[in-house]
């Protein structure tokens, strides 16, 4: 029952990831406060938080090194959850814009 995986992250890796996570959070807050970035706020924040999400899942939750099946068990419902959010947003907001033509 050994599925520690091929490679294994070291303590150093964990610390580096933690540093990256903190930096990204600081950038996110920065983007939030700097008026010049308002126009691209949403996509930038979504991308940055997606990166944080991915780092924690891949490294801290070890998904990168584990059996691909766990990624399927998690990834499938994750995509479904995302689809639920997106489709509800479309239904409640998307068609309104299209109907009013604005």
């Amino acid at each position: 029952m050994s599925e520690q995986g091929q490679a294994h992250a070291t303590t150093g890796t964990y610390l580096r990831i933690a540093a990256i996570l903190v930096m990204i959070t600081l950038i996110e807050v920065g983007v939030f406060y700097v008026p010049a970035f308002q126009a691209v706020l949403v996509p930038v924040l979504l991308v940055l938080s997606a990166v944080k999400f991915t780092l924690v899942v891949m490294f801290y939750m070890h998904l990168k090194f584990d059996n691909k099946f766990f990624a399927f068990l998690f990834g499938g419902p994750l995509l479904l959850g995302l689809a639920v959010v997106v489709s509800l947003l479309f239904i409640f907001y998307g068609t309104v814009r299209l109907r009013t033509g604005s």
Partner: protein
Amino acid sequence: MKSWLTTTDHKRIGLLYFWTAFAFFLIGGLEALIIRAQLVRPEGIGVSAETFNQLFTMHGTTMVFLALMPLSAAFFNFIIPLQIGARDVAFPRLNAFSYWVFLLGGLFLNASFVAGPLFGAGQLSVAPDAGWFGYANLTSRQFSPGPNVDFWLLGLQILGIASLAAGFNFVVTILNMRAPGMRMLRLPPFTWMTLITQFLVITAFPVITVALVLLMFDRFFGTHFFLPSGGGDPILWQHLFWMFGHPEVYILILPAMGIVSEVLPTFSRKPLFGYTVVVYSGVVIAFLGWSVWAHHMFASGLGPIADSVFAGTTMLIAIPTGVKIFNWIGTLWGGQIRFTTALLFAVGFIAMFIIGGLSGVTHASAPTDLQQTDTYYVVAHIHYVLFGGTILGLFAGMYYWWPKMTGRLLSERLGKVHFWLTLIGMNLAFFPMHLSGLLGMPRRIYTYSPDLGVAGFNLVSTIGAFLVGIATLVFFWNLLRTRWQPVNAPANPWNGATLEWAIPSPPPVYNFTVIPTVANRLPLWQTERHGPMAPLPERPPAPIHVPGGSWWPMITAVGLPIMAVGALSHFLPVVLAGAVVAIVGIYGWAFEPFEM
């Protein structure tokens, strides 16, 4: 008796599910008969409008959550470990927990029938009365001030926990506990359909949980999630409910389809036609099942784009379903058919499900659905697919697997009576509903005017319903009388191909003396490509360790209805007491030495 309370044996749990679910099936059936008695003629005066609302709500809720799903669970529990060559499920105590939570949730929900006096209601019964899909804002405290809807939303949350726990258990069991050589594409079709169903359960139930929690907050704490007065939108309820509700109907039908895919090959003496395609169709149905939910909402003003998208996806889903039907026909074609009761029910399933599927396809078109929705046409559709489909499929499973589960064969003579009465009864009951629906008879009305011109149809429906009731009693008698028979069913009375038939009827507690190594899809059959598996030894070569029972699953389960009762009576200390019981149960469970 104690051993039944603490059992963690999947076979016993399966039997517990069966009897409990069958009892709820009879209760749900009784509710249906009262409804039909009320509607037998125009302006019937049997029951009040409020009572009628409770009857159709409880009929739907009971049949979906307390009868159909748990009857399927009875087979998941008993049969799946046998079909995959395992000694039990992955988490036996979690399995027991699911059963106890189901039982307690069902009792909680039905307690509402006699709880009226406790709430100062004017009548005995405060059963849920807002329909089995509880639309907002009828379910708001304003329009449903009594405890009825509270019973519903709390009861369903409890039942949801049972289903989720079982979902995780069976996903892991089917993937991780298979015998050597039992590759995924060698799994029996019933096991495949169960696996797909459990994935649907674990993704869909969280959504209804959220919906019910939001409703609970509206009713108990004064939020406005579904209330326009506070900016909320009742449509959100519909979206959340049907996002669960549509996958739920596939949760209801796929196991029965799996049963049919087992029964047909056995009694045609032919392998399932297009096994791989049948499996993949099941997977596609599950995926697409997530994309169609708003076809339940065509009359709620979604707009032309949403209407078109959902109409399109709904029509698409007819394809994999149709594929399965052709594969079943292909299985029968050219086979050496033995017309046992199980086979009759399986064939009945195909015929009835085609009819239900056709009315479903007519629903897929948004414009035609606008006439059909909320009329008896929909009631016809749902009963053709759920009774004609799921229930006939489950009956097929009962006749097929009863000898394996109990060591006794059901009477084929009584079985045939049961089958024909059921088939005739259900068609008399539900076919006219297509017509009365199109003539404009709305659903959920407790009486109707003679001017509507549907009195004749309703009379026929009621006769049909009572025929089904009689048929069910015939079946019940068939079940009961086996108790006085000797336990002498052979291991493989039907000459089935799959592993459950390789062991005695009923199986010994450890299932297999030796875990078999599987080489193909039909281990017990001689085919052109391979011979049958060697018989398993009569005795195990060494003593087999069987885990003992445990009190903790039941103790943990008990905490949940206690919390629900506390919530219902708006009494926090009881809620906390229930939570403490559950937590104590969890700790006891976690620290109990339990060797698989």
